[in-house]
């Protein structure tokens, strides 16, 4: 083969060579595409399968009342989980588990057959159930201890504290509002794992915050007062056959909430079975027309503005007063002639109030209402607060101005009402209502303290003093509407109120469905307690003086008995007595430790040395009082006795190490 054929032969070889060069260039480009251009995406996916992050939350912080009484704490409860890869017969296992946990057998079987290495079977079971499970000694079924939220006082302040879900996440109330603080920073543990789910090397504890950073809350609530309030409220609701009600007790000097009770009650230990409506803290999430309890704020504004004096007389039109196209009457069709301002409050005259508001003017009246804190959130540290309803004064008709004067046509929340009354009680200063006194860490050290915060001065101290005097008359004088709240030896200032509910069906205020309230404070000369008692739709004793005032008196008597001296001091919080180390412990029914899941070796079992360096393994052994025979060097690849076998008897072990390369 020479000459021409040879030339063609070479040409053909050259074409083959060129073909392969093109193909191999394509390979390089493809590699570039896979590794450089889209590499990040694949890398993320790969890391997701290679790594397993375990988040270990520190034990949730405790919620204390102001005296260090625990309102919410955590206890350890057993949960059952399965490692389906170790279960041969899912149906049989499900049947056994169903018998103990009471869950449907089918659901369990489905769970088990659906998952690979880990699935929950039952969370936070009773000690008796966990004992039964332990006795079943089933392969692939394990018990793990999880912190469970526990509310030792049951429904006490239930709506305020709220509750946590299965995974210790706050879902309502303070538990939700301060979830981040109570929960603390999780300790993130990264495991490398192979495709069979086996842990590969010891976790690198990531540096996200130090351990036990969770905080406990100390509330301003006093569980003794709370208890007194709740039991009285319950009794009152039963007695008057009301739909419910709420009571707030506040320290007017500081704005601290001492008690806040809702009825019907809610037990956060059984949050799942409670009606959604009962979980709400209606004292801040619901608004209502305040009725006559609104009159003191009108009078305070008028006095502060100097448009009236206590002794100014107003003609009360003998019980029927026509404003524009509406005619106003007194409550219970009473008829009043000429009343002083003092008497207008004492007898709770609607027409007198309307006349005062006419003298004050709607713009100024509106300004004071806002300054007293109505129509805006108080920003108390509780979730779900609403602002209430206060229309701009420009939209008020003459009739509107008149109805607002006796508390209809304006909607307020209980917390707004109490705060506003506190401003009168404490000499004119609106205080920020607050319920969280401080954060403490796990050793009881105060981390952050919330000092009383004044919002603004609403009225002068002089006006406040004169208002207090008038309101004391409402309760103390013969014929006052608040006489049922009077106490022996202690002057009480207060005001009743019954607001008709707006009947949306008939588009008018209903005389059947009312909210009857009493708000007041004592002792008049140096007020320590401001209290609002509000009963929702009582069937008996519809008028504020009859339904709510006796409740106020009853609670006040108990308060006075308890606190004959100053209650402002807060006893220190008791030292935290929870063992910080006892977080998640694994108890396995069979001897073996599961290869996956939130597994930390049980103390009394042989630790899993595999993957440790010699030094780590020696330390791990030392921590458990084991002597270790080391063979080889590098990383531990095998051990005897096997990981997870009970320690009793064995006080030594042999671990083989091997270098990985």
């Amino acid at each position, binding site marked *: 083969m020479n000459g021409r054929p040879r030339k063609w032969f070479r040409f053909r070889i050259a074409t083959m060579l060129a073909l392969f060069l093109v193909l191999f260039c394509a*390979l390089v480009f493809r590699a570039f595409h896979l590794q450089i251009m889209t590499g990040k995406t694949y890398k993320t996916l*790969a890391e997701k*399968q290679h790594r397993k992050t375990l988040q270990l939350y520190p034990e949730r912080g405790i919620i204390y009342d102001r005296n260090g009484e625990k309102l919410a704490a955590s206890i350890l409860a057993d949960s059952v989980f399965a490692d389906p890869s170790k279960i041969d017969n899912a149906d049989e296992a499900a049947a056994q588990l169903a018998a103990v946990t009471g869950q449907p057998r089918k659901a369990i079987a489905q769970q088990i057959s659906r998952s690979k290495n880990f699935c929950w079977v039952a969370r936070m079971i009773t000690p008796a159930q966990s004992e039964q499970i332990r006795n079943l000694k089933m392969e692939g079924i394990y018990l793990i201890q999880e912190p469970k939220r526990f509310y030792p006082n049951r429904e006490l302040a239930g709506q305020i504290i709220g509750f946590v879900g299965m995974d210790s996440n706050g879902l309502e109330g303070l538990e939700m509002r301060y979830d981040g603080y109570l929960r603390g920073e999780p300790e993130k543990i990264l495991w490398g794992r192979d495709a069979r789910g086996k842990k590969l090397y010891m976790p690198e504890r990531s540096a996200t915050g130090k351990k036990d950073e969770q905080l406990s809350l100390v509330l301003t609530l006093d569980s003794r007062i709370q208890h007194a309030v709740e039991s009285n409220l319950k009794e009152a609701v039963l007695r008057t056959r009301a739909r419910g009600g709420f009571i707030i007790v506040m320290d007017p000097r500081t704005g601290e909430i001492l008690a806040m009770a809702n009825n019907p009650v809610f037990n956060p230990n059984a949050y799942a079975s409670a009606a959604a409506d009962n979980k709400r803290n209606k004292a801040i999430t619901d608004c209502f027309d305040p009725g006559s309890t609104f009159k003191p704020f009108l009078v305070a504004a008028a006095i502060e503005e100097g448009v009236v004096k206590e002794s100014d007389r107003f003609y009360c039109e003998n019980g029927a007063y026509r404003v524009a196209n509406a005619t106003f009457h007194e409550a219970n069709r009473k008829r009043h002639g000429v009343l002083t301002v003092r008497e207008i409050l004492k007898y709770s005259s609607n027409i007198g109030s309307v006349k005062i508001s006419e003298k004050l003017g709607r713009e100024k009246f509106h300004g004071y209402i806002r300054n007293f804190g109505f129509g805006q959130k108080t920003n108390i540290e509780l979730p779900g607060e609403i602002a209430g309803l206060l229309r701009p004064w420009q939209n008020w008709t003459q009739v509107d101005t008149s109805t607002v004067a006796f508390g209809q046509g304006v909607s307020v929340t209980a917390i707004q009402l109490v705060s506003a009354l506190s401003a009168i009680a404490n000499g004119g200063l609106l205080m920020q209502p607050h319920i969280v006194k401080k954060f403490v860490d796990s050793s009881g050290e105060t981390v952050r303290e919330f000092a009383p915060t004044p919002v603004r001065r609403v009225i002068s101290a002089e006006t406040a003093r004169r208002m207090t005097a008038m309101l004391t008359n409402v309760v103390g004088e013969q014929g006052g509407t608040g006489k049922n709240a009077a106490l022996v030896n202690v002057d009480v200032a207060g005001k009743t109120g019954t607001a008709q509910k707006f009947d949306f069906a008939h588009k008018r205020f209903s005389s059947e469905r009312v909210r009857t309230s009493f708000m007041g404070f004592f002792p008049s000369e140096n007020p320590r307690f401001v209290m609002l008692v509000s009963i929702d739709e009582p069937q008996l004793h519809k008028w504020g003086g009859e339904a709510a005032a006796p409740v106020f008196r009853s609670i006040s008597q108990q308060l006075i008995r308890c606190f004959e001296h100053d209650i402002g001091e807060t006893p220190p919080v008791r030292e935290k007595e929870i063992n910080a180390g006892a977080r998640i412990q694994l108890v396995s029914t069979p001897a073996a430790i599961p290869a996956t899941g939130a597994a930390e070796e049980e103390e009394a079992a042989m630790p899993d040395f595999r993957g440790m360096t010699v030094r780590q393994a020696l330390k791990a052994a030392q921590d458990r009082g084991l002597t270790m025979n080391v063979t080889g060097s590098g990383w531990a690849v095998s051990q005897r006795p096997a990981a997870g076998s009970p320690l009793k008897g064995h006080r030594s072990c042999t671990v083989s190490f091997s270098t990985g390369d």
Partner: protein
Amino acid sequence: MQMPARGRRPDFILLFIVLVLIAFGTVMIYSSSYMLALQKYNDGYFFLKKQLFFLVIGLAAMFALMRMPYTWLRRVAYAGMAVSLVLLAAIFIPGIGVTKGGARRWLNLGIFTFQAAELVKVAVVVFLAHYLTRKSAHIQEFRKGFLVPLAVVMVPVAFIVKQPDFGSAVLIMAVALSVLYIAGTRVRYLAGSVLALVPVAVSLVMMKGYRMDRWNTFLDPWKDPQHKGFQIIQSFLSFGSGGPFGVGLGDGMQKLFYLPEPHTDFILSIIAEESGFIGICAVIVLFGLLIFRGFVIAFRVQDSFGSLLASGITILLAMEAFINIAGVMGLIPTKGMALPFLSYGGTSLIVSCMAVGILLNLSTHQKSTPRGTVA
């Protein structure tokens, strides 16, 4: 002027390239198979030891074939085909043939198994080189230059399809057609035969469900990422994890049971993860150089038999490398085919070494052609 035909030194560049590939492959086989071997055989060095054993045999074969006068191959060319057929037939004898993963591809040789198709590949190349050289005068004829050689080749190919080893069958056909092209068969015959073989291949694919699955998986691996698409997706993840520089030799995660067959067909994915784009480029460039040297040898060898043999062997190695590399990168459907010199596998290593031995032998027979001049 011509140098003496014999006595030139072998192509050391080629030898060096091959040794680098083998060394790298051995390291990677150790890295990728350690955990698997520990798990399966309780001995992390299990695959490494076996591979080193085969390597000794392979290198011995390489040097033997390098020393031996290559004209000897012409004498065994027909015998080689006969032996191939006997071996392929023997696979179907129970007790001698070994079935793995649903395919009868191996002969039981006592201490190890032998994948007959690997040897057949070289035998076909030797046969074609010899036959086409003899018929060089009639190369443009339809019968002698095309039909007869192709028909002979298709006999062992039929056996291989039956095993089944569709990938090797396609490879042998492609190599055979390429060798015919280089020998000078009319291109229109070759084009016609390709057109005729495509429907055959398509029907073979359609006949077997798993081949169809592989094709569909190739088109869209993410359709079933947990099962059918699992392997190729894991390969992509390996490539992506490696990035430009890799995670470091031995530090890859994908070999920990994520990527099936990390030490055999998918060893390049492990290389991609552990040594990155740099490592992949190195491997591809090494294969490119190997092919280039192979064709240079084919260029320079004096006689047609040597030229055809050198081209055929080069094409064989090039195609094997391309099919594997393109497969693990998702450019073509995955085929259970080893990457020469890098993948674990005794037969593949030994046969590849033998092929390189022949190439090195041929490189000693080239006439020295100064650059730019035509002989």
